């Protein structure tokens, strides 16, 4: 088992740091899956703890200048699964991200398995300055890999692009002060509503003129779903009530300036956020509560 990668471009280092920071805001611990082509950050939470799921994937070629890995078994399972605390990784990178000349990431065996970050800093004297961080990880045995499969794209009732996250964040922060849960409702007509009902107050915020992404044939189920939605009328709302803290956490954690955030709603079951960026995608599932 071997993993070694090197980030050189300052833009890549910053972007990689932002991704890790985003993940660290969303999950205390997560699974890092390393394959020869991609890196995945995965969270599969127990239903008792909220049941949130995160699936974030990035293409290594877009970040790393050098990349070398060898899985548990080269032929059948050329992959590595590690469990780590993303905050540790984020903290190692955060302070040096402005000046680092290069960042090397290695899987090492110290007292425990570690991801060792070797960060090269500029120096005036010609002697190189290097900062080392050992982030302890645990290696997940192969028999447990099954727990970390890519979640299926849900058979959603409505798919809508979210408005500017800044506006949404303000609204959700206020609502968080009023209630523990929020109802997210949307239709195929570009309308989104956030509703809070408590003993004291009912608040509804309406967004309109949003776009509804059209799912091409590569998502077969989505497309077939769309026709049924069309059948039942574009203005019909699908809605789900979710834990408002989880929603606020998702909005607050965004550091990656996504090109688009899509919100898919399976009526009264789950909200699926799909964050699209040039070189990464992040999926966030919040189950409905009742």
């Amino acid at each position, binding site marked *: 088992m071997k993993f070694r990668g090197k980030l050189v471009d300052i833009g890549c280092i910053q972007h990689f740091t932002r991704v890790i920071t985003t993940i660290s805001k969303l999950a205390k611990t997560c699974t890092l899956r390393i394959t020869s082509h991609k890196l995945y950050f995965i969270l599969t939470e127990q239903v008792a703890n909220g049941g949130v799921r995160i699936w974030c994937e990035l293409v290594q070629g877009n970040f790393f200048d050098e990349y070398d890995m060898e899985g548990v078994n080269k032929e059948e399972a050329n992959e590595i699964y590690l469990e780590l605390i993303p905050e540790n990784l984020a903290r190692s990178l955060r302070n040096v991200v402005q000046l680092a000349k290069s960042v090397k990431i290695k899987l090492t065996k110290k007292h425990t398995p570690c991801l060792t970050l070797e960060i090269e800093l500029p120096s005036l004297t010609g002697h190189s300055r290097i900062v080392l961080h050992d982030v302890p990880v645990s290696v997940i045995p192969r028999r447990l890999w099954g727990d970390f499969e890519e979640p299926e794209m849900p058979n959603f009732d409505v798919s809508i692009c979210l408005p500017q996250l800044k506006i949404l964040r303000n609204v959700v922060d206020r609502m968080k002060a*009023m209630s523990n849960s929020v109802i997210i409702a949307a239709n195929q007509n570009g309308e989104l509503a956030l509703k809070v009902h408590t003993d004291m107050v009912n608040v509804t915020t309406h967004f309109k003129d949003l776009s509804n992404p059209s799912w091409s044939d590569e998502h077969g189920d989505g497309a077939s779903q769309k026709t049924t939605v069309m059948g039942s009328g574009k203005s019909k709302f699908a809605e789900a009530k979710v834990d408002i803290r989880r929603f606020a956490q998702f909005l607050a954690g965004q550091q990656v300036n996504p090109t688009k955030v899509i919100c898919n709603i399976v009526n009264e079951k789950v909200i699926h956020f799909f964050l699209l960026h040039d070189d990464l995608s992040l999926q966030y599932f919040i189950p409905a509560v009742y």
Partner: protein
Amino acid sequence: MVLSTQQSDDGRSHVLLGKLDNARTMANILKAIHFKESASVYASENGLKFTVEDAKCVQANAFLQGSLFSEFKMLEETSSFKVNLTVLIDCLTIFGTSATPGVMTTLKLSYDGYGSPLRLMLEEMGVTTDCSIKTQDADESLDFDFCSENVVNKIIMKSECLKEAFAELDMSSDVLEILMSPDKPYFRLSTFGNAGSTHADYSKESDMVEAFECKRTTSNRYKIALLKPSVRALAQSSKVSVRTDDRGFLSLQYLIQVDDGQVCFVEYYCSPDEECDN
């Protein structure tokens, strides 16, 4: 039809209807008296008065005069109800507390009479929010019977110079003593805490003092815990008027400048600490 303009969309008429160009104005003024969960609202043709009371000893009033609104209508002569102030402020600032320059949250506020909720409609950049806040019967408010004839001492000063004194009040002291006098030390704030006593003196000749009308020396003590919330009003105000009457009751009036050149008033009344009267 005189009433036709007061018909709401669904045909009913509102007892109270107000439109405001900037909802944050209202939120800011309400924050000045937000030291208790709920506030009683008294509406009349002149505008809205929000009242918050604590321990039957302190009362804070915020006035939103009718002219502050771009449209203000009352169907009945007066109307009153009680709302949760925390929720109301949260609703008014639903699009965030700090305004983006050039962007304003417009507000339409309506109340349909006894038993109906207070409705707010807020709009900012095409995004709308509807709020419906449950109302309760208004509390009977304390009458401090504070009239200008009985005022003994009165000082009007710029708020700036009081801000620092109030921000650094020694909270280990139970009381704040306010001394006002035609002779030295003119105006003195004192606390008596664990670490010792502090006195802050203000001369009547100071540039900060705009009016000084003291007839005789009075010295009264007020519970510091009751006065501390008035810092919120002080922080926003530009001028403050400090008055005491012959019974030692204290009136603090704050003048708060609002965006469009208008002014609003917030006032605090506080009764003196009885033990120290003898």
